[in-house]
């Protein structure tokens, strides 16, 4: 047997051994990439296996349509007995069907809309609280943005594709993405998650009011609430002044840009605006001044515990004032502003009192030095006397 034949025989033996081994291996091992993704996922932790989702060999299985995917997930996720141990709700599919996504999929068979796997992933699904999950507050904006920032896709629905970009410039995004404050709203906080549906003009206030409860209550008492209730697009509760996706931290400057949108030719209302801004600005300035003074005194080691409590009270009044201006009721704003002013004055008077004590300490140096110099002179004189 020549060398070439020996090599061919050895090759054939190896090939038969390899194919025999492959035939006995479960098909999870064949899908290396999927297995890698599945490892560490929430479903692997729950003990799921490939065949729980894939009814046939995935190598031969064609991609499911999105409706089937939603129903396939719901087999477990709508089953109370299966979800109870994990404390998960079972109404996701029903909820989803009420959403714009679900409506389009189930009513029109639109395969472009998002379904479970588009947001949660497929093999590598993680629990929402996992920082790496696509649905974690720090990632959800980008997850929604995969479709909602896609200009081509959004144009087909006549939807803007800059909402995610705008959101990222907002104060809400600053809190979530920069400060790690996950109590601040993301897309799903306002729009919902499974039951994703854009808030209508009338519901916007209610959506904002979920967090800004006090502001909403006060707004309801304002003349603006009547305009909003009247409909006809005259006034859209929060959005008319604060905007929506690109919402910024509210400040007195907002009055300069928002009021004139409707009241540019209404001097009486603009006067109310000027008075309101004046009260808020004065209270904020007083608070800022008092804070600087108290902080400086604290760093110096002066006893400012009481003043720090007073400052908190001033801050409460300023916050209350900022919320109360939603009523546009000057008779309610003025007493709060006056109280804040009183507290600021009290704080500043306390700090001045502490400074006075320091002044007395400095004055105290005069008798101390007088005594010490007298003693030094006595010692000196006695020494001279002894030397002579």
């Amino acid at each position: 047997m020549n060398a070439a034949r020996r090599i061919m025989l050895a090759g054939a033996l190896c090939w038969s051994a390899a194919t025999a081994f492959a035939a006995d291996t479960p098909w999870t091992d064949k899908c290396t990439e999927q297995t890698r993704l599945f490892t560490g996922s929430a479903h692997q932790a729950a003990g799921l296996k490939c065949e729980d989702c894939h009814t046939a060999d995935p190598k031969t299985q064609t991609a499911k349509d999105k409706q089937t995917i939603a129903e396939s997930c719901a087999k477990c996720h709508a089953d109370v007995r299966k979800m109870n141990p994990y404390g998960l709700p079972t109404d996701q599919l029903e909820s989803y069907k009420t959403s714009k996504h679900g409506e389009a999929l189930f009513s029109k068979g639109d395969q472009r809309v998002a379904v479970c796997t588009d947001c949660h992933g497929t093999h590598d699904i993680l629990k929402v609280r996992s920082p790496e999950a696509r649905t974690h507050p720090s990632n959800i904006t980008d997850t929604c943005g995969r479709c909602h920032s896609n200009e081509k896709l959004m144009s087909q629905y006549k939807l803007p594709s800059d909402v995610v970009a705008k959101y990222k410039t907002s104060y809400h995004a600053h809190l979530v993405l920069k400060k790690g404050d996950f109590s601040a709203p993301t897309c799903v906080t306002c729009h919902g998650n499974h039951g994703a549906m854009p808030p209508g003009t009338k519901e916007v206030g209610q959506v904002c009011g979920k967090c800004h409860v006090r502001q909403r209550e006060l707004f309801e008492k304002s003349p603006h609430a009547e305009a909003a209730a009247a409909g006809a697009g005259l006034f859209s509760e929060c959005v008319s002044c604060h905007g929506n996706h690109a919402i910024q931290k509210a400040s007195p400057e907002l009055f300069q840009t928002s009021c004139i949108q409707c009241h540019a030719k209404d001097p009486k209302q603009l006067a109310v605006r000027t008075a309101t801004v004046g009260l808020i600005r004065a209270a904020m300035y007083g608070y800022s001044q008092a804070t600087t003074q108290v902080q400086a005194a604290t760093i110096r080691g002066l006893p400012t515990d009481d003043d720090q409590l007073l400052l908190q009270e001033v801050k409460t009044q300023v916050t209350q004032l900022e919320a109360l201006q939603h009523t546009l009721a000057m008779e309610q704003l003025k007493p709060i502003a006056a109280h804040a002013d009183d507290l600021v004055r009290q704080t500043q008077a306390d700090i001045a009192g502490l400074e006075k004590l320091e002044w007395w300490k400095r004055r105290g140096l005069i008798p101390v030095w007088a005594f010490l110099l007298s003693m030094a002179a006595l010692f000196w004189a006695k020494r001279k006397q002894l030397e002579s």
Partner: protein
Amino acid sequence: MSIYPKIRLWLNDRYDVATVEQFVDSQIHKPLPKETGFWHTFGSLSLFLFVNQIVTGVLLMIYYRPTTNTAFESVRYIMTKAHFGWLIRGLHAWGATLMILCVLIHMARTFFMGAYKKPRELTWVLGVAIFGCTVTFGFTGYLLPWNQLSYWATTVGTEITGAIPWAGQYLKTLLRGGEGVSGETLARFYVLHVVILPWALTGLIATHLFLMRVQGLATMVRFGEEKPIEKGHGVPFFPHHVLKEGVIFCLLIGALVTLIVLLPVELGEKADPFVTPEGIKPEWYFLSTYQLLKYFPKTIGLFVSLIPQVLLLLWPFIDRSPERNPHRRLWALGIGVVALVAALVFGLLGYISETTITWRGEKYELDVYAKPHKVCPAENGNAH
């Protein structure tokens, strides 16, 4: 019959009171050389300030709590609530600064008057050890208020230890009690500050004083030619010299109280390991070393900064000429003056580095080497 003779009689029945009285009397009335002047009082001032540190330190310990959660708050309590807490803390903090200053002046006086020469070499070596202990006191005590400045200055200070070849990382971890400055570091520094260093310094000072009393104060006479002070020729320690010290003590106490009132020690902001404040610098007595270290790579800088300290320790064994008068040992005088000027210059550069100054209407930013860089109006925020 007054009470003292009764007590003396009672003691005399039990102990050899006469010998003790004779010893105390001889020490009190021991004559000092006629050259003993005001410059000689800085040793006593250092001792007085050490006693001040012990007394005020014990009082501070009543309220101070050495943990990361309570250290800053307890210092705030001392400053704002405890009766005269501000004064006690001021006496302790400014006392430490003045003690280092007095020790330095005392050492400079000893150097320039050649008092370290034979037979007082060991007294000098002990003096250098006392100085080392004193600045270590300052370094460990600086962390205890647990404010931003103390935390970050200690972080920078202990980082230098890591530059020691081979053992650096181990020593740094040993000093810090972990990777970074933490509660472990605070506990270690506290133990060093209130237990180990006070006893070490007490022992060193006692031995230093004992040697000084046994060998007496040095005169300006060449060694080997010194003669014992004849009776009636020297200056009696008591009351003459003590009165002189009394004058200086009064001025020192006045300076101390003035500093406490006019430049009160700040409480600062609580240490935050996640926020590094700008312009972190060590205490003034480390500024020259701190600045020197910037001009060299880490390990080389460490050795360069150690050279003056080793020279200081071994100086009596290097300068072995019999002359004490500075006019007759000009090279030693020159080295001393150069060392002092270098320390002042580097200290000043360290102080002004990483700051912004205005010179003839122009604004300059000084970098880490204290090299000025002119600030353009645009950078200055005055473009218009």
